[in-house]
């Protein structure tokens, strides 16, 4: 289904010059030069081959600031092909400013079709959420990652954490979670909740809420993670085992709300809280705008809003 370059027959790849003036920007198709894309593709292949392992890559400067999605953009720029349909979300929404900015970037530099529909997209670049609509095989989800190493806040040194990953020395992570329980009675990590991928590497799922963690497990879509500033790429191939760390007596659990979505009435999606006045008024709405709109259009909500 997808036309993304990763799935392409190598023969159909543009190997440099063919693409170069295919748009009016004066830059190569999707901004990055083909040499760079080739380098990143190699890293992506390695990442897919070793699920959850952080592959160092020669990250380039992008025309957006570091920390604003440069890693995800480099991955997207590398895998996207002319026939792809791109969706970009930030906080689950298509209309947040940074999502708009990145979607425009690719519309401008690659001239690809864009969509807000999760189903129609072949490549979805995301920050902080996994869409509520289940993904299908052939789709690629590209995550923007600020700090790729889940051990970073326990051990700031790269030289140390690399060893810890290699030796699966993850005891400290469990100690950290245990300390949460001792202090608060719960695991107090609510987003960027660490997962173990394919029974080996502990991985940072990027700052998605732990609500989304179960969606990573066995997902038919390919999940790619790009950290531009930290120059790391990692991946979860389709149908891979992804477990959130927990304890037997404190099993992993996700957030829940007493409220339902004000628009579509959903009682099972991640809800954003919207402050409606300065007297404590609050409503809750789906963070995934596409999902909410679909449900609303399908008349999921009985009464008018």
């Amino acid at each position, binding site marked *: 289904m997808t036309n993304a370059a990763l799935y392409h027959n190598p023969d159909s790849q543009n190997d440099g010059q063919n693409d170069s003036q295919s748009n009016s920007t004066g830059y190569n198709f999707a901004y990055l030069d083909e040499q760079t894309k080739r380098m990143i593709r190699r890293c992506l292949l390695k990442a897919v081959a070793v699920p959850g392992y952080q592959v160092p890559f020669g990250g380039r400067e992008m025309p957006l600031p570091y920390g*604003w999605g440069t890693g995800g953009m480099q991955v997207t720029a590398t895998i996207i092909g002319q026939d792809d349909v791109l969706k970009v979300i930030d906080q689950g929404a298509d*209309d*947040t400013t940074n999502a708009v900015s990145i979607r425009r970037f690719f519309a401008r530099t690659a001239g690809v079709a864009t969509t807000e529909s999760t189903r129609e997209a072949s490549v979805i670049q995301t920050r902080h959420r996994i869409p509520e609509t289940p993904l299908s095989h052939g789709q690629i989800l590209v995550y923007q990652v600020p700090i790729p190493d889940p051990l970073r806040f326990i051990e700031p040194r790269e030289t140390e954490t690399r060893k810890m990953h290699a030796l699966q020395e993850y005891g400290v992570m469990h100690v950290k979670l245990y300390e949460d*329980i001792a202090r608060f009675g719960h695991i107090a990590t609510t987003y960027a909740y660490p997962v173990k991928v394919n029974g080996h590497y502990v991985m940072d799922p990027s700052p998605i809420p732990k609500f989304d963690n179960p969606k990573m497990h066995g997902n038919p879509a390919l999940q790619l993670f790009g950290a531009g500033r930290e120059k790391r790429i990692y991946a979860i191939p389709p149908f891979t085992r992804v477990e959130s760390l927990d304890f037997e*007596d404190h099993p992993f659990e996700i957030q829940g709300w007493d409220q339902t979505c004000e628009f579509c009435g959903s009682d099972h999606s991640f809800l954003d809280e919207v402050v409606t006045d300065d007297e404590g008024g609050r409503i809750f709405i789906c963070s995934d705008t596409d999902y909410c709109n679909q449900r609303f259009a399908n008349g999921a909500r009985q009464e008018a809003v």
Partner: protein
Amino acid sequence: MYVAVKGGEKAIDQAHSWLDETRRGDTSLPELSVAQIRQQMGLAVDRVMAEGSLYDPELAALALKQASGDAIEAIFLLRAYRTTLPRFLASVPMETNTMAIQRRISAAYKDLPGGQVLGPTYDYTHRLLDFTLLANGERGSAPPSGDETVEDCPRVLDFLNSEGLIESPLANSGRTQSDGSAESETPADLTRQPLDYPAGRDLRLQALARGDEGFLLALAYSTQRGYGRNHPFAGEIRQGEVAVEIAPEELGFPVIVGDIQVSECDMINQFIGTETEAPRFTRGYGLAFGNSERKALAMALVDRALRARELGEDVVSPAQDEEFVLAHCDNLDSSGFVSHLKLPHYVDFQSELVLLRRLRKEFEERKSGRQGPKVNTTSKPGNQDEPSTDNEQRREVKQA
């Protein structure tokens, strides 16, 4: 009434046109030209070139104009342009010995061959605002008589080196071995390969040359105040033009492709010596595009501090800590990641809110359950037997 966060697209467009207007300022005043910036804001241009790691005064001036004079924004513009440029060749190592000197001073010797040449420096100006400039007048001072040519300036550290008083410049050059094999001829390039620790000195120097002047200055200062002290003397500081040469394979000999203005600093530092080796001074090195003397000095101090491990010193201070310095010296890395806090974090914040409300609710429940006199409310909130009661009260959706 709920107002959705819609209209991001329109808002962005409007913000951009407002920005253009603000950047231009009062249109009754003549517009600043790129040539004017290049000529009259030279030190700003130099900083943008140095940290943008692209030697192009015109584009650096353009970047400054486009960025309303914000150095980091201008550096960003230049870097994002640089990264798209093709690379043809690496230059032959530059010979700063052959520099056309504009400034050359040594704080280690009173006089030396070639002499002390002050050059165009702010060093001995009194920092008094010059109201003539405000009144739109130029200073009346005559241009310096240009008949005096600077003699050959042999390198100060070479005097010491010939006596064996200082380590040789190539001692422990410690190039990064990217492929794990023996030292490669080509220096590492962190703009093509990700930074890898421990980094060779070539990689460290590259990172420092691109690094933020303010950050390096503060680190350098910290070494002077005892955080990784390395007893520096400014052996030599020089500024001027140096030829850049390339040696294409098919030609077989080097050709000059142009001259660039650089600032260089050789720092002389405290000595080392062992049972088998006589004591000698050590070196720190700094080099930056343009007239960027402060940067070159700071870089030399930090370079020396980062050699701590190689020279057998204890790594106890931030300036000596390679991972700390290299991971945080780039101002695009840091400004990008700090400013990304402006991006929406609704989802993560909501996740924290949900947890915090729950914790507070449990706290209230515990408190009301404890109205009897026996419990000390100031004890730690999570004593041993509480988590199990919490489990029973759990209202969250359990994961299947």
